[in-house]
């Protein structure tokens, strides 16, 4: 960011007198605003697509009244959420009730910072990228727990407790399933991980096809991540049929909107991490994006990344509308008795593979056979 600020100061003579840190700060705010706009747009359109997909899968039509073919439904929803009365229950803990949605939203939105949208499009290429995502999303747990408690409602409390137990449990398999990608790249930075999957192998350069263990790792990650974001087969915290709507049952208006946005934000983060760690990120097959002019390279890589990420989101929705909800004990059993051991075995397998074959994947070995 500072490098960008320096180049900006050099390019625009008007900024010469301004201290560098001011320019950097303003740039940071601008970038944050851009990402926020992207996130909000994604969340709006995502909610519409979610409902449309739900309609298609359930042999219905879905929203089709607002705008052509229901395309503007999300705007109507957004306006409704903003304009709705913000009700705080009389016996709620007012301070915590107001604070909780912000924790959830910040925890979800902060993860956008390290999403590698393109070859040069990343808000901050932290060298602890993946670890940072794991860390900031843990803020969501606190928010959800506090929301459940502050509502002074037994359903909300149950939902909050379930959500926390679930997120804490599934953080382990999510992290363990992502480590193979880190091991292959030798870095926690998401940009480095994406770059490690580039090259001329095309889609066979992806970590998904690196070796059998990474292949399984991807599916393990996807399952666990789906659970960590409280998506439907694992949406026990919200379980409409038993908990009304869980921890956010007492929330209305824009505070509910923040929970809602955070949920979709999490969805995108999961898809983006899956794309970056296993599906080659923004790499264009058989092609070095870096050789193109800056603007075209970024646009192309952005397109590739978003296509992959949105495809992953669609698959998440597809799973979401296919599977029925698990029971609490089944959920916990799945995490502790299936996903955790499997991810550990996988991690061991990947490590051994990298040790034995000196970091080479199957496609790489085949390629080297043919010179």
């Amino acid at each position, binding site marked *: 960011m500072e490098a960008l600020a320096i180049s900006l100061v050099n390019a625009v003579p008007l900024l010469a007198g301004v201290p560098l840190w001011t320019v950097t700060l303003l740039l940071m705010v601008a970038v944050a605003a851009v990402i926020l706009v992207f996130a909000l747009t994604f969340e709006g359109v995502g909610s519409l697509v979610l409902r449309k997909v739900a309609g*298609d899968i359930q*042999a219905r*039509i879905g929203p*089709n009244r607002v705008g052509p073919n229901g395309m503007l439904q999300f705007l109507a929803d957004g306006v409704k959420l903003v304009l709705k009365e913000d009700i705080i229950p009389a016996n709620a803990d007012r301070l915590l009730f107001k604070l909780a949605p912000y924790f959830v939203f910040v925890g979800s939105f902060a993860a956008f910072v390290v999403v590698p949208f393109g070859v040069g499009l990343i808000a901050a290429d932290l060298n602890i990228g993946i670890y940072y995502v794991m860390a900031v999303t843990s803020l969501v747990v606190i928010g959800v727990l506090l929301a459940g408690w502050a509502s002074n409602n037994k359903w909300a409390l149950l939902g909050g407790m379930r959500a926390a137990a679930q997120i804490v449990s599934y953080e382990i398999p999510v992290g363990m399933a992502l480590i193979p990608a880190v091991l292959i790249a030798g870095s926690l930075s998401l940009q480095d991980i994406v770059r490690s999957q580039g090259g001329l192998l095309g889609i066979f350069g992806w970590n998904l096809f690196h070796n059998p263990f990474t292949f399984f790792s991807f599916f393990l990650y996807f399952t666990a991540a789906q659970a960590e974001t409280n998506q439907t087969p694992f949406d026990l915290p919200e379980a409409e049929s038993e908990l009304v709507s869980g921890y956010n049952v007492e929330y209305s208006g824009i505070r509910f909107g923040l929970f809602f946005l955070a949920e979709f934000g999490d969805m995108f983060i999961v898809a983006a991490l899956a794309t970056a760690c296993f599906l080659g990120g923004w790499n264009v097959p058989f092609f070095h994006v870096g050789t193109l002019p800056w603007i075209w390279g970024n646009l192309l890589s952005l397109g590739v990344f978003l296509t992959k990420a949105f495809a992953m989101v669609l698959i998440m929705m*597809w799973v979401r509308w*296919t599977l029925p909800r698990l029971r609490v004990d089944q959920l916990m059993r799945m995490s502790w008795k299936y996903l955790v051991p499997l991810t550990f075995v996988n991690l061991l397998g990947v490590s051994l593979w990298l040790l034995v074959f000196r970091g080479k994947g199957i496609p790489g070995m085949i390629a080297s056979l043919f010179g």
Partner: protein
Amino acid sequence: MGLKAYLNDIVEAVVTTAKGMRITARYGVDPKEEVTLQYPEERWEIPKGYRGFLHNDIKTCTACNMCVKVCPIDCISLESVRGADKKMVLCSYDINIGRCMYCGLCVEVCPVNSLLHTSGYEMASVALGELILHFIAAEDAPEIKARVARQVAEAAVKAAAQAAAKAAEVPSSGTAEAAKVAEAAKAEAAKAPVVEPKAAMEEAPQAPVSEPTVAKEGEKKE
């Protein structure tokens, strides 16, 4: 749990998920699977023998009371008076369609096929009373009753006069039996004009009170 069962569990989870996702994908992709009917714009074809709202053709109705008796939830109420020609004349016929369960028993039992199911199924109202179908307006009932009572009275007077005329003829030529008949006719003629209209007048104010009190409230609201 053995290792084999453990692995079997995993395989089963993957296989069943894949199966389910194949099914949902088929639904998702195939537009023909959509079953939604966009109701106000699109309507379904009403099948033959569809049991919609009840309709009574009061012109053919004989006020036989069969429908009232057979109705299992007592949503039909009718009121009738005996007319001059000994046939029953309807003075009110109400169906509480909000209570009707469309069992069709009343239609089956109707001897003259005046009560029928129509194809109508749309009805919305803001007050419960509006769900009562009045086939004869409530305010018409006293008028009909009065008219019928008048007709009956006229007929009775006529009959009495005829009987009296007959009785006058009979004693000259007739037997003791004929005389007895004439006595009876006279007595009847004396009674009839007094009693019958009175009964009709007594019943008249009761008629609206019995069932459609709710209806009146609903009408007031409007």
